[in-house]
């Protein structure tokens, strides 16, 4: 591809205190074969317009910082090649369903609160033994039950793809619920009862209508939609087990 070829980016701009709402600004950037949308944004920032704000860090699909709407679809901009989006124009906006702080930067507070709400760490009934007493052992088969759900990079693409979260921002949402399932399935954890209250709450798994787009856009193939459906099954079984006279058979 010729180095002289260019492609148009329509980038959403929002300057708090100046703009009432986001507006689109056009930029011409070189269309290079090995450039992703993030490279194009970096080119704009460095060469054309230094006022453009956006988040990024690793450039290799690991940090989860550079999620944005690319032509209306939530994507990691470090993985979205310009050549696949040619001839353009390419529309780049902040992740939908989140408040916009500035330009392409969103407010993360709600997402972080939701992550915390599912107790995303290993919970033990008894106090932790000292490290010299040895580690908690886990077989490869036990690891395999939850490993997929531990691959989440908190990029929030799933929240942006989830229409339920868009309509009902109280919904705990895909990534946090997948993380709850990750710890629930961990053989070292004993915190299922703690998470059950959140998972089965009004804003928990039963809000999900199984659109499945969260799993479709997930760059790490975590499959939060699958995790949520499995949690629905667990939540339903727990409801029956809590009926008078029904013995419990589940992990604590």
């Amino acid at each position: 591809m010729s180095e002289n070829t260019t492609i148009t980016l329509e980038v959403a701009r929002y300057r708090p205190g100046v703009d009432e709402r986001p507006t689109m600004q056009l930029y011409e950037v070189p269309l290079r074969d090995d450039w992703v949308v993030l490279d194009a944004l970096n080119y704009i920032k460095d060469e054309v317009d230094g006022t453009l704000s956006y988040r990024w860090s690793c450039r290799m699909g690991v940090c989860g910082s550079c999620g944005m709407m690319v032509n209306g679809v939530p994507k990691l901009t470090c993985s979205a090649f310009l050549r696949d989006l040619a001839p353009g124009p390419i529309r780049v906006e902040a992740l939908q369903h989140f408040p916009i702080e500035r330009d392409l930067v969103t407010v993360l507070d709600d997402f972080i609160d939701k992550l915390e709400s599912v107790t995303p760490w290993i919970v033990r009934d008894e106090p932790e033994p000292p490290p010299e007493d040895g580690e908690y052992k886990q077989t490869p088969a036990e690891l395999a039950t939850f490993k997929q759900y531990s691959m989440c990079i908190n990029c929030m693409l799933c929240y942006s793809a989830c229409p339920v979260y868009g309509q009902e921002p109280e919904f705990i949402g895909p990534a946090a619920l997948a993380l709850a399932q990750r710890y629930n399935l961990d053989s070292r954890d004993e915190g299922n009862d703690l998470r059950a209250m959140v998972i089965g709450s009004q804003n928990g798994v039963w809000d999900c209508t199984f659109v499945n787009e969260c799993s479709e856009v997930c760059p790490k193939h975590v499959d939060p939609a699958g995790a949520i459906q499995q949690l629905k099954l667990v939540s339903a079984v727990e409801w029956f087990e809590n009926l008078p006279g029904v013995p419990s058979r589940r992990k604590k």
Partner: protein
Amino acid sequence: MTVRKPYYERPSSTWWLKRWPYRFFMLREISSVFIAGYGVLLVVLAMQVYRGPSHLADYVNFLDSPVMFVVHAVVLVFALLHTITFFNLTPKAMVVRIGEKKLSAVMMVTPIYVAWLVVSALVALLFLL
């Protein structure tokens, strides 16, 4: 110093028109309305059977019209959509593990389709024989 003033816009009520996966989801969801509607037709059929042969004949006459043929065809399309999407989503809700390996989606779904075909063939045989 820049003032913080986050901009938030709730999605419009037409959010589902924006992308094909959302439109397809809405089709899948609305398919249950058609299936529920067909359930009403069947309940009325049972009532007419209970009320006697003349009522049943009237109802069969009512069903034997071009409009009702179209209604049945539309319901069939939505019933197939509902069934196929439901079957295909099963491996997500049910995880079967053999040691460290997860049973593949194809292995999970194939027996369901086979069972569906067998039951459909048995029902068809009941009416044809």
